[in-house]
């Protein structure tokens, strides 16, 4: 099975090791992974800011790069959600394009959803030891139904103690451009999220989206919490990904 890995723009720029972790996990699951070299952005920033034309341009670019793969896997609920649930809307009015988009959407998966339900990854390579609370990112949870998948994968790791924190399904306040247009409100929402994380008293809060990750880590540190690690689920599952920055 030929899997196209779309690392997302935020992983590309901020946390390359998450991209390598995703790659390692897919290869562990026996996938033949291809990483299209010219990939950039799925178009979500434009789409959510009302720039349909800009978003459509990027959606068509991604479509061209990935439509030959059997599956497209994305280490982000919101970018996978963009492709799966919104590309069809962007292609509205162009039947040929809409058909291609629909086929792409149907084979696009958030990473843990793909590993748990499609690739059926059995042996998780990571060796994390400690307690974890999982933050359910909004788009992953409410657009794609990602809830049990990351927990099932983490449960395969003998060193992991998984606990549930209060408000796990509540928004962290990131919201893309919202975080810089309404910084104060965004940070106030993040503060509530971080209070829940700190009350859970875990070694790491683990999640599946870069936006939430930057927001939560930034807020925890500003609140003076230097201890709670903020990790992408791919990093935890993969362990040392190789490919250091």
């Amino acid at each position, binding site marked *: 099975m030929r899997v196209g890995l779309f690392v997302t723009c935020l*992983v*590309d*720029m*901020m*946390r*390359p090791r998450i*991209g*390598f972790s995703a790659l390692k996990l897919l290869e562990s699951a026996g996938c033949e992974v291809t*990483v299209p*070299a*010219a*990939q*950039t*952005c799925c*178009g979500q920033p*434009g789409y*959510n*800011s*009302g*720039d349909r*034309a*800009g978003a459509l*341009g*990027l959606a068509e*670019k991604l479509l061209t790069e990935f439509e030959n793969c059997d599956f497209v896997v994305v280490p982000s609920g919101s970018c996978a959600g963009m492709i799966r649930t919104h590309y069809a809307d962007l292609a509205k009015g162009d039947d040929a394009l809409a058909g291609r988009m629909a086929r792409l959407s149907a084979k696009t998966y958030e990473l843990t959803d793909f590993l748990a339900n499609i690739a059926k990854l059995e042996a998780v390579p990571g060796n994390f030891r400690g307690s974890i609370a999982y933050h359910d990112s*909004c*788009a992953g949870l*409410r657009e794609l139904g990602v809830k049990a998948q990351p927990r099932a994968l983490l449960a395969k790791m003998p060193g992991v103690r998984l606990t549930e924190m209060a408000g796990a*399904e*509540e*928004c962290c*306040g*990131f*919201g*893309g*451009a*919202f*975080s*810089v*247009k*309404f*910084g*104060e*409100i*965004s*940070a*106030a*929402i*993040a*503060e*509530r999220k971080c209070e829940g994380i700190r009350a859970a008293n875990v070694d790491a809060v683990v999640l599946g989206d870069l936006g939430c990750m*930057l*927001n939560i*880590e*930034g*807020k925890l*540190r*500003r609140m003076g919490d230097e201890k709670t690690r903020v990790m992408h689920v791919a990093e935890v599952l993969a362990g040392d990904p190789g*490919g250091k*920055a």
Partner: protein
Amino acid sequence: MHFKARAGQKLADVVLQENLRKAKSKFVDMRARAIAELDDFEATREAAKVLRDRTLDDLDLWLERFELEATRRGATVLWAKDGAEVCQRVVDIARRHGVKKVTKSKSMLSEEAGLNQALEDAGIQPVETDLGEYILQINDNEPPSHIIAPVFHKRKEEVSALFARVHKLAAKTDIEAMTREAREVLRPHFLSADMGISGGNFLVAETGSVALVTNEGNGRMVTTLPRVHVVVTGIEKVIPTLEDLATLMRLLPRSATGQSISNYFSLLTGVKHAEDQDGPAHMYFVLVDSGRADLVGGEFAEMLRCIRCGACMNHCPVYQAVGGHAYGWVYPGPMGSILTPLFAGIENAVDLPQAATLCNQCGVVCPVKIPLPDLLRRLREKQVEQRLRPTAERLALTAWAWLARHPALYALATRIGVRYLKWLAGGEDRIRVLGLAPEWTLGRDFPAPEGKTFRELYAQKH
């Protein structure tokens, strides 16, 4: 003052913040428990969505049917195209019947229209009788901050001080005593009012009835004691049958207040007949357009399904953080961020559709399945089309879309960008003040990037 400035004040309001925190989980938890009572909540939601859409598709026909049936039962149906006409119609009715005092139960349309002011200007005394609305009225006509719980933002201590000042009685400390005091003050008004004004949760076309969902009993007093009853509600509230009403009533109280059924549920049909013990001698419906008819069949038509339960705001992280007053008009939260620009003009509420994380906590709880984030996004598109966004934002979006379609340049720009950010962090794992996005670092740090892009590292290895 815009949403953002008001929101800033609300975030700095320590008392409000404490109240919001306490109130938040109450609504959320109660709704979660209440919907669990339904065998198939999702199927009920779907049925409600379908019946609302079906009715709205033929809205004119159902309104005509309603008018016919209500008129047959002795009521008078009047139409108002906007708030000014609402005030005109109601004041005319009051004058016709020599009304000096009006008791009111909750009506958001009365807020939309500014009806209390119009009544006062016409020399008619309006008395709000919903406890929350009454508190706001005696507090110098403060606007409500929530459509179901208008004093959501207040603490009992504030109400206690207000009552002592206005009622000139000793300050009470517990809520029960304060409620009793309000009842005692309101009772003479109930008995002396010449006219009652209510809202309407639903209008049932087949019987010409109005359905009222209330919890305090004041609605019953307002609609049955005075000789004139006026219902002021929106044209989109009409539904075909009592069967449809039953479907929607399974959802409304559960979604709104977490109750299986509200304390009072009234189905009011026609005027008092000779054999009736009570009821108004005259019944009027003022059915209001105020921008609703324009939405029928359009790209925002789904918003007309709204049954005003307030679940969207109760579950909204932004509403939970800033409260209802920040939204600046009658309807707060996600539904307000859509209705305000649609009713008051897109250019008059530019912040509201932007002030959402699109987390969809609202969409998944909406009992009539309104895709609120999609509608917010559509309003953002309208703002771009109508050139209502700041130049810097437009340029940034255009630049990003262009750059991301040119992978070689994109690779170069991102390599430089992440190195710059890494340099800004100065060896730390975070950036404390980010000039590029100052709003981010107002309230949190910006984690530093690793320093190289995935694409360059991957290219080195493969």
